[in-house]
C-alpha cells in the first residue's frame, strides 16, 4: 500500500467515465419515459390493451438487466440496417437499451399512480412522480456500471483497468474506496435533490390546504 501510485490522468479518466454513466442513464430514462408512459396509459385504459400492458410491465420487471444487455449484444447484427441506414447500436447504446425494461416498468408503475392522483383531483400527489423519476435516474447511473462487462469505458471500467495493474489487495481496496466515494457522492447528491423536491412539493401541498 505504501507503493500505491495513481497516475495523474486517473481522476480525469474517472470523471470522464462517470459522464458516460450519466449519458447511459439519461438515454435509458428518456426511452423509459416514452415507453413507460404509453404502458401506463394502456394499463389504465383497461380491457385487452390493459391486460397486454400489465403483462408487458410484469415481464419487463422480471428481466435481469445484465442478461438483457448480453441478449441485445448478441442478437442485433453488427451490420443491421433499416431503409439502408445502419441501425446497429453502439455498446453504450446497448447498455442504455438494456436498462429500458427497468426504467419503463418503473415509469409505468409510478406514472399510473400519478395519473390516478391527477384524476382524483390531486395535482400535487401526481407531482410526486418527479422525485420518483429522479430516484430512478440515480439508480440507473449506478446500474450502468454493468457496461464494464461489454467494454464500455464508464467509471467502473476506469477503476477496474487501473486495479488490474495493482498486485497488492490493500492498494486495490484503496482504489475501490475512491470509486465508492465518487459514486457515493453522486448518489447521495441525487437523493438530496430528490428530498429537496419532495419537501418543496410538500410545502406546496400545505399551502394549498391552507387556502380556504
Amino acid at each position, binding site marked *: 500500500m505504501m507503493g500505491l501510485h495513481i497516475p495523474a490522468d486517473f481522476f480525469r479518466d474517472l470523471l470522464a467515465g462517470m459522464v458516460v454513466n450519466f449519458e447511459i442513464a439519461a438515454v435509458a430514462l428518456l426511452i423509459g419515459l416514452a415507453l413507460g408512459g404509453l404502458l401506463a396509459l394502456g394499463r389504465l385504459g383497461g380491457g385487452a390493451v390493459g391486460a397486454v400492458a400489465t403483462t408487458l410491465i410484469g415481464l419487463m420487471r*422480471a428481466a*435481469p438487466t*445484465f442478461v438483457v444487455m448480453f*441478449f441485445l449484444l448478441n442478437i442485433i447484427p453488427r451490420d443491421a440496417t433499416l431503409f439502408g441506414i445502419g441501425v446497429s447500436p453502439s455498446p453504450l447504446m446497448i447498455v442504455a437499451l438494456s436498462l429500458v425494461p427497468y426504467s419503463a416498468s418503473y415509469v409505468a408503475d409510478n406514472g399510473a399512480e400519478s395519473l390516478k392522483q391527477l384524476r382524483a383531483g390531486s395535482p400535487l400527489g401526481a407531482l410526486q412522480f418527479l422525485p420518483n423519476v429522479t430516484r430512478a435516474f440515480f439508480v440507473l447511473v449506478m*446500474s450502468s456500471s454493468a457496461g464494464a462487462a461489454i467494454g464500455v469505458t464508464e467509471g467502473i471500467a476506469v477503476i477496474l483497468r487501473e486495479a488490474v495493474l495493482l498486485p497488492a489487495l490493500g492498494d486495490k481496496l484503496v482504489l475501490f474506496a475512491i*470509486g465508492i466515494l465518487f*459514486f*457515493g457522492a453522486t448518489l447521495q447528491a441525487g437523493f438530496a435533490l430528490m428530498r429537496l423536491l419532495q419537501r418543496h412539493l410538500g410545502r406546496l401541498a400545505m399551502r394549498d390546504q391552507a387556502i380556504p
Partner: protein
Amino acid sequence: MRAWPTLRLALAGILAGAVATFPFVATAETPDAALAKLIEDARAEASAPDTCAKPELDRLVRVFCDNRIRPGVREYYPLFGTREGQTRSGYDVDVARALARHLSVEPVFVRVNAATRVPLLADDRIDVILATMGHNTQRDGQVRFIRPHYYQSETIIVGPRALPVKGWADIAGRTICVTIGNGSNAQIVSHNARLMLFDEAGVLPDQLREETCTLAAQDDSFFDYYFIEPDFANRFDKKFGFAQVPWGMAVARTASADRLARALDLMSQIFHRDGVFLGIARANRVGTGFLERQRAVWNRPECNTDAGSTNSACVLPALDAALQPTPFAGRVTAIEDWIEARTGVDFSLPMFKTMPAWSLFKDGIVNSLILVAGALAATLLFAMVLGGLQSSRRFLLRWPARAGTIVLQSSPVVLTLVIAAAVAQAIFPYSSAVAIGAAIVALGLMNGSNAGQAIAEAMHTLRTERGSVQGTGGIPTIDLFGRAVSRSATQIVSFLINAAKGTPIASFIGAPELLSALTDITSFASGRATTYTLLLVFYVAVVVVVVWLCGRFRSWLEHRQAAA
C-alpha cells in the same frame, strides 16, 4: 539333414527381405527428381493435341494448358496477405509466387477470406488455398492439405508489459478478449478465464490500446504485424503461447487434383529443405522458429526422399479440433432442421450438440439455481443481522451498521462484486466455488443492507407508536423485531426479487452460471441468437418463480402482522 528345413526357411526369409527391399531401393529418389518427372509428364500431356479441351482435365495439366495457377490469398491479413491498389504482398503471396515460378507459370491471385476459401476451391474458382488456413481434422474432410505444412501459428496471450502473467495459473478469473469461433477459446475457458467476445480480430489491438481489454488472445501471426510498431511493442508483450496449429496449402479433394497435390507436396518439401520458405518469411518479417526447425527436418536423409511427405516421422499431424458429440446430437440436428424448414428461422442449439458444451450448459443451470437460492438466503440473513444491529440501542452496534449500509448503497453493483471477489481470492485460491460464494455474499450484502434498513425503520415506527421505550407494553424486544420484519414485508420482498434478478452479474467475477456458460459455448460454436434468447427466457422464468414465492412469503408475513 535335419538342418536343411531350417536353412531353407532362413534362405526364404533372406530372399523375401531382399525382394521387399529391392523396389524401395530401386524407386527411392530425391523429391527434386520426382517433381521434375511429374512436371515433365504433365507438360507433355498439356502439349498433346486436344488435351486442353477435354472436360474434367487433370488440374496439374490444366495449369500448364492455361499457363497459370490461381492461388486464393487473403487481402487484409497483415504480413501474410495484403493488397494496396494492384500491389499484393505478404508471406502467403510470396509463397504463391515462388510456387508459380517453380512451375514456370503465372500466378493469378483470387481474393479469399476465412469464410470463402473452401467454397471457392470447391467451385473450382481457385486452384490452391494459400490463406492462413490451419490444418485440423475437421477440415481434412473438406480439402486435401499439402504436406509438409508451410507455416505454423499458435495462439498467444498479449497484454501490458507491467502485467505479471506468465502462464495458465495467472489467467484464472481474468477477462480475455477473443474472437468468436477461435478454436482455442475452449482451452482458455477450461482455465477459468472469462471471455469478452468480438467478431473481428482487427479490433483487438485497438481494444488493448484503449484499455477496454487487459488481455487479448489471437494467432501469433496476427500480432506479428502489431509488434513491428514501436509504440505497440513498448506497451504490450506476449505473455505465453499455446494451441500450435500447422498451416497448410490445400487443393480440392477430387481425383483430378491428385497430381497437383503431389507436385505441391514435393515443392513444399524442397522449399523447406532449401530454406525457400525461411527466406520468404525473413523478407516479410514473420516468425521463423517453426521454419528453422522444419528446415532441419527436411534435410534429414529419411525425409529428403520422394516419399518424405507421407512419412509420419517427418510430417506433422493435423490438429484434432473435433469436439465429442453428445449421444443425442443427431436428434438435436433433426429438430433444428425441422424448425428451419417450417419457419425459415436459422435455429441452432449448440449447447446440446457437443459434450463440452452440454457439460458447460448443465453446470451453468445448476450454478445459476445455487446462486439464486444462495442470494435469497444471504439477503434474508443480512437483512435480519443488519436490521437488528441498526435497531440496537447501543451506539457501537448501530452506527457501524448504518455506516456500512451507506457504503454498500453507494457502491455500484459491479464494484461491490469485484471487491468481494478480490477479498475472497486473497483468502482462498481461485475456483468456481469461491467465485459463486463471493457473488452470494456481495448480492446478499447489497440487498440485505437495504432490506435491513427497512426493518430498522419499521422498528423505529413501532417503538414510537409504543412510547419509545424498548419492550414497552409488555412486548419483548425479539417479538417487537418480528413485528418490524412483518411490517417491512413489502420492502424485504422487493430486495429479495432484486437479489434474484442480480445473480447473472456474478458472471462478471467468473462465477460459472448460465450466462457465463453460454458465453463460453458461443465462443466456439454457432447459434448466438437462439442461445441468448433461451438465456433470457430462463432468467425471466426464474425471476417469475421467485416473485411468486416472494408473494407467498409476503402474504405470510402480513398475515402474521395482522394476527399480532
